[in-house]
Structure formats: structure tokens, C-alpha cells
């Protein structure tokens, strides 16, 4: 009755459209970029991508010895090291607040906090350029009330990166918050009640009971947020174009700039370097946070 042959035939019909599109638009380009990263392909070779010269590891060496690329690597690390913990902390605080504190209008707050996640980065950029603008901006106006003369955030070498981090936290914490909420709802009330009977205060209960039980959720959000932030691109792309003086250029941003200059070989080697770093860091995160 259950024929393996019929099943296999049906399976291939169902799988075929995916495989065709996947080969053409994902697997092909992944292999293509690996190949390109070892050639001197430039924009002028766009129509003849197979008639270019192999250059071995030249592109990789060039990238690694490029001053701006190193600056971009530093900026990306800065963004990830500050941005990921900050995003997760805000997300976790918001999730605990909504799950344990706010009983009425919970859906309203949840949706409100999640709104930036579903909003186009371009629209966000339009708003935030105003929020951060030196004279008429929202931030400097509020600072002015308490007598602080705020800087020109996006034009300052010191403040441009923190501004983009703040914007990224604002924009992204909602998606980690939703996952934390799901994790928190999976923890039975009895766990906390037991802690309460043993005389543990709210902070102790959170630190020693809730947080360890959230470990799998924490692993998940740190991995996905980490992967996303390592590819830091849209904020500098729409806000600063990597400036001032390359202080906000990220690896993805610099890769895109090299693409814009027509240096396709160099651009692909940079994106592969980023890919290797993402794979390694993801692997390390799994090892560190895996349940014992």
C-alpha cells in the first residue's frame, strides 16, 4: 500500500522547484563567489566572468593588509561586542517586564515594542536622522532641557558609532524580546514559588532560577543576534555611508563599497573572510552556551 517508488516520485516533484531556484540563486552564487575571490574579476568583466585570471590568494592578502579593511573589522567587532549584549539585555528586561509585571494591555506593549523590527530601514533612517540632527533633533532638544549641549552625533568620529549602536538596539531588541517571552512562558510558576518559600528575593530568583532555565533561549538569541550584527550593514549604509573618516565602516559596508568600485574579486574575498568569522564565532557560541 505504501509504495516507496510512488513516494520518491512525489518527493522529487515537490522538491524540484526549490532545488532549481536554490541552485541558480543560492548555491550557484555561493560557489561562484568562492571562485571569484581567487580571480582578478572587475566590473568591466561583467559580461565575461569566465575569461578572467586566477590570482591565488592575492585578494585575501590584499584585504588583510588593507588599512580600511582592518578599521572595518575593528568597527564590526566594536559593534558586535557592545551591541549584542546591550540588545539582549534590553530585550530580556522588556520580556521580564511584560511577562511578570504587565498583566493588562500586554498585547499593546508587545506590539509597540516590536514595531521597529517590521519597519523599513529606510523609513527608520529618515526618522533617526531627525532624531540625531544637531540643532532641531529630538535627542539634543531633550539634552538641552537639562543644560547639556549635545554633539553633532553622526558627524562625530567619537559619537557616530555609539549613535548607530543605539539605533540598532532600538530597532532590533523586539525580535529577541519575543523569543525571551516564549522562553519565560515555558518556565512553570512553581519554580518561582519554590524560590519564594526558600526566601529568595526577586533578583535572586531571577539570577539563580530563571536565568539558568533560559539558557537554551539565551543561546538561540545570542547566536541569531550575533550572526545578524556581524553582518552590520544597513545602519551605516543609510545613515553615514561609513563616515566620518571610516569610523562607522563595517566589513559588509566595505565589501559593498568595493563592489561599487567594480573590484568584484576583492569584494568576494572580503565577504568570504566574514563568512569564516561568522562560522567560527557561531561554533564557539554553541560550545560555550551548550547545556552541560
Amino acid at each position: 500500500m505504501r509504495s516507496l517508488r510512488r513516494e520518491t516520485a512525489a518527493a522529487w516533484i515537490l522538491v524540484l522547484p526549490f532545488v532549481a531556484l536554490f541552485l541558480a540563486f543560492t548555491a550557484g552564487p555561493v560557489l561562484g563567489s568562492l571562485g571569484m575571490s581567487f580571480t582578478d574579476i572587475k566590473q568591466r568583466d561583467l559580461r565575461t566572468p569566465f575569461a578572467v585570471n586566477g590570482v591565488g590568494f592575492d585578494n585575501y592578502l590584499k584585504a588583510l593588509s588593507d588599512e580600511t579593511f582592518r578599521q572595518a573589522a575593528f568597527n564590526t567587532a566594536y559593534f558586535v561586542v557592545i551591541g549584542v549584549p546591550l540588545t539582549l539585555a534590553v530585550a530580556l528586561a522588556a520580556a521580564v517586564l511584560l511577562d511578570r509585571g504587565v498583566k493588562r494591555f500586554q498585547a499593546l506593549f508587545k506590539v509597540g515594542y516590536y514595531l521597529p523590527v517590521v519597519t523599513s530601514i529606510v523609513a527608520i533612517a529618515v526618522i533617526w536622522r531627525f532624531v540625531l540632527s544637531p540643532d532641531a533633533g529630538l535627542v539634543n532638544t531633550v539634552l538641552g532641557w537639562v543644560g547639556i549641549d549635545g554633539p553633532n552625533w553622526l558627524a562625530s568620529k567619537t559619537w557616530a558609532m555609539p549613535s548607530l549602536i543605539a539605533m540598532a538596539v532600538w530597532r532590533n531588541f523586539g525580535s529577541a524580546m519575543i523569543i525571551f517571552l516564549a522562553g519565560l512562558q515555558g518556565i512553570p510558576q512553581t519554580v518561582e514559588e519554590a524560590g519564594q518559600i526558600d526566601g529568595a528575593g526577586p533578583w535572586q530568583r531571577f539570577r539563580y532560577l530563571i536565568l539558568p532555565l533560559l539558557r537554551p533561549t539565551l543561546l538561540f538569541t545570542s547566536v541569531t543576534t550575533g550572526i545578524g550584527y556581524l553582518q552590520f550593514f544597513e545602519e551605516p549604509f543609510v545613515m553615514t555611508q561609513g563616515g566620518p573618516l571610516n569610523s562607522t565602516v563595517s566589513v559588509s559596508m566595505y565589501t559593498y563599497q568595493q563592489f561599487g568600485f567594480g573590484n568584484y574579486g576583492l569584494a568576494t574575498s572580503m565577504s568570504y573572510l566574514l563568512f569564516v568569522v561568522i562560522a567560527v564565532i557561531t561554533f564557539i557560541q554553541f560550545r560555550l552556551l551548550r547545556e552541560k
Partner: protein
Amino acid sequence: MRRTWWIYLIAVLGLVAVAAPFVWMLLGSFKTQGELLRVPPTWLPQAPTTQNYDDLFNKANFPRYFLNSTLVALVVTAGNLAFCSMIGYALAKLRFKGRNALFVLVLATLMVPGMVTFVPLFVFVTNAGLANSYPGLILPFLVSPFGVFLMRQFFSGLPDDLMDAGRVDGTSELGIFARIMLPLTRPALATLGILTFLGSWNNFLWPLVIAQTEDKYTLPVALALYSTGQNAQNFGLLMAGAVVVVVPVLVMFLVFQRHVTKGIAITGLK
């Protein structure tokens, strides 16, 4: 009960911090250029005007961009729903050679940065003569590893007995998929559909490089070019443009938010 008021105060302050820029944008879109530049800035428009929206739809070609965005997002969403549910079902419920290898491949692609495929994809699409065309905008996004993963997880949770019942009745394998199993995944399809639509609507970088003439622009591309080009000083127009990009998806999100948050909690991805 007494100690809950300050918890609500914190929650409301958080909401204000998150929502203030949106509210400011919405109010700003009804202000005149002069009022937008005033120091210190105003909250409520002092002489509310719809001039910015008039300009947007009459002088700038926003109806066209709106149509392009809608068309691309609808086709991409339909493709994802069809193709991801098909392969998701095969991966979860059917025996065939290479099934595990295919699934591992899908999972691995979830980790590849978009930048890695960007340049060769651009070379390929350009060489295929698809630059500045709707197929060029749509084809690379018709399937997503995330969608495959989501649908596979949902199909895995459905009992095999249903399939066997269909087989006893003489339904074909494809009939079992389409008529018995697929209707049961409606929650998953809703989640995938909404997330795909949002993703496509907000997609920016690919349309920016592929749409080369104005008649193929999507909304984010048009807005970005307006905010850097000669219109960059027309802040009211920019605010109104941002509202036109954001409000449709916000309304859609509010209507379907239950599905979205549930689906995100289940799968854990943005």
C-alpha cells in the same frame, strides 16, 4: 496591587521611547517645510497641511513605486508559500534518497551572509538579461531557507496516520499533500506569508542595485534616493514618504500580529 503602578510607568516610558520617533514622523508629515526646520522643534503641526502627500502622489511618482512594491511582495509571498510548503512536506514526511543531505544544506545556508552571494548573484542576474526587470527583482527571493525550515517543522508535528488514511482511500501522494496535509498548516502558512511579505516590502539593497530606471523602483529604493538626491532638503516630502512605506505594513502587522509573534516564538527567527 499598590506596587504595580511603577511597573506600568516603566512599561509606558519604554513604549514612549520606542514609539516617539514614529509619532514624530507621522506628525511631521503634516508640517510645512518651515515648521520642520524650526528650533526648538514642535510636536503638533501648527498649521496642518496635506501638501506633502499631494506632492508625493502628484509630483513624485509614488503610486508607481507603491504598485511595484506590492507586485513584487505578492509574487514573492505566493512563491514562498507554494515552494516552501512543497519541499517542507517532502523533507518532513516522504522517504527519498538525499533527504537528510538536502535538509543539512538548507540549514547551512541560513548561516551564509547575504554579502557572500551578492556579487556573483548580481553578475549572474545581469548576464541572464534580468537586470532592471520584475523577474530580476523577484526570482532570487521565491524560496527562502527560513521558509523551508519553518514548514518542515510544522509538517513534522502532524501525525502520519492522516497520510495512511488518504492512501487507504486511494488518494495519490500529491493529493495527500495538497488536500489533506496542506490545509492543516494554515497557522504556519499565515506566519510565513506575513513575514515574507514584510521582508519583501522592506527589502532594500537588492532592488537598489537591480532597479536601474525609475519605473522599476520599489518604495524603499525611491525613498532612499529621495533622501540623498536633490529632494534631500524637502523634509516634509521625506516624512510623508516614510509614512507611506511604513503604514501599510504596520496596519497589516497589527491585524495579523497574533500569528506573527506566535510564529516567531516557535521558530525564533526575525
